[in-house]
């Protein structure tokens, strides 16, 4: 018999040494383990689409969560390339299924306005390729001011570092000029920051640069992210200033 045909035939009826000899039951058990894992992933509250982990801020360009998890191979290329050290592996923020997928960690780094490196490197396009102008229109979250910690709100001290750092062409942080009393009873005019939810893209530079240590006085959560129509608070989407 022609050796070539024999070789092809051996795939269908393998001779003894070519058999993997795995055992039908064991293979079935492994398959059931895979099925079991999938089912258990599916009962994580985040899979319900009603509960959103506010810390699950994905890089801009990330696909909607289900598709994202189906593509991300947890390779860490985005974590390596990010020039601000903003992207980190999750622990359980994305559920067990999402372990070691990329998440933004704003106290450590922020998403640079003019950068799209993570979307350039992703080998499976779980972070789809977006050019910089498109990326600037993607919201990955929304900042909120913690008035209990913010220097102008809580301590009548001048600050505004968050507004200074905000990169959007029309700044997403604006001011209320408020008259406050200091401890001596004197009147001061202090600029108190407010976030504009229409303009804020959730880049996180405000949180990274906020001088309040421990827990920044302005923080970003995932709400408002463009990729998830369920995770929203505004009635109508805002507009972005061209820049």
């Amino acid at each position: 018999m022609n050796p070539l045909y024999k070789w092809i035939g051996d795939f269908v009826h393998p001779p003894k040494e070519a058999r993997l000899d795995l055992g039908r039951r064991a293979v079935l058990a492994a398959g059931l383990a895979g099925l079991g894992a999938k089912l258990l992933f599916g009962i994580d509250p985040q899979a319900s689409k009603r509960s959103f982990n506010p810390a699950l801020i994905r890089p801009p360009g990330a696909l909607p969560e289900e598709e994202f998890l189906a593509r991300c191979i947890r390779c860490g290329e985005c974590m390596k390339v990010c020039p601000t050290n903003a992207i980190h592996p999750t622990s359980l923020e994305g559920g067990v299924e999402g372990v070691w997928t990329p998440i933004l960690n704003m106290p450590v780094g922020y998403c640079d306005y003019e950068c799209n490196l993570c979307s350039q490197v992703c080998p499976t396009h779980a972070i789809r390729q977006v050019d910089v102008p498109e990326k600037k229109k993607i919201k990955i979250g929304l900042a909120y001011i913690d008035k209990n910690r913010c220097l102008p709100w809580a301590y009548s001290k001048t600050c505004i570092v968050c507004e200074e750092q905000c990169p959007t062409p029309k700044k997403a942080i604006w001011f209320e000029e408020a008259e406050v009393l200091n401890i001596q009873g004197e009147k001061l005019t202090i600029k108190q920051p407010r976030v504009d939810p229409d303009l804020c893209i959730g880049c996180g530079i405000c949180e990274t640069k906020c001088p309040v240590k421990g827990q920044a006085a302005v923080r970003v959560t995932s709400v408002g992210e463009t990729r998830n129509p369920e995770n929203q608070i505004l009635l109508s989407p805002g507009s972005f200033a061209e820049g």
Partner: protein
Amino acid sequence: MGKIDRRDFLTTGVLAGAGLGMGLLGSDSLRAVPAPSISIAHYKSSPTETDGIAEEARRLTRQAIEALGGMNRFVSKANIVWVKPDIGWDRRPEQAATTNPDVVATLVEMCYQAGAKKVLVSDNPCNPARLSFPRSGIQQAAEKAGAEVIFLDERKFRKMSINGKVLKEWEVYQDAVEADRLINVPIVKNHNLCLATMGMKNLMGVIGGPRNRLHQDLGGTLVDLAAFFKPRLVVLDAIRVLTANGPVGGNLADVKRKDTIVAGVDQVAVDALGATLLGYKPDSIGYIVQGNARGLGTINFNSLSPKQIEV
């Protein structure tokens, strides 16, 4: 004390228009004519193409410095010069968030022509340096002019005594202090806290530490830093200025052409002049008022008889 003496001396000299003038912070030779301490160079046209703006930047910078007596007044032979532009943000030159690269390059060239041994160009930016340095065009332009463009080395930040009114000590970049000369080259921008950021605010790029705390008293801290560093020369880039949403900007509609360069030795006066270019009154800016009050310089720049040149 010495500062006030020199300022008085210069003011007297210029006003009297008599006697031998001297460079404010020392010069190599006695001059027969008193040298001005502040100059404003304005370009007659406002070119739109890149080459035209580059040419404008080069000519304006040269003329502004020549009007002060030439770079030889500020840089001596074999000096190590630290040129400090604003490279703080990951922005393109036309967005006016960073200093015009050709202004920086021209200053570098002039330093070498004046006999400098080495010209260092650097900044401690707010956005990552690897991004802001090339995107601003400053890295390429400065390197082409022969400067050594440095990415700051974390190890070289040292706590130093500032002995200011607010700041007692702060982390400062060692090599910038150890350089023979410091030339401050900011770009004029709007800033929502202090209204305008120019020379004195630009000195925040030679320090480290928790800079985001300085905003609690910019008036006091910036004057402390300015008094500590005492740059030999301040060159304000006002070719493009950022009129709103500064100091980061981003919207080209906020960029206005002023086609001007201001050069001077009096940090307060130069900043006061710069403020007017943005339409602000100098006495509405805290660090200018405090700088004047503490004798760092004069808010009344007109008293220095600025040399005006049309190019």
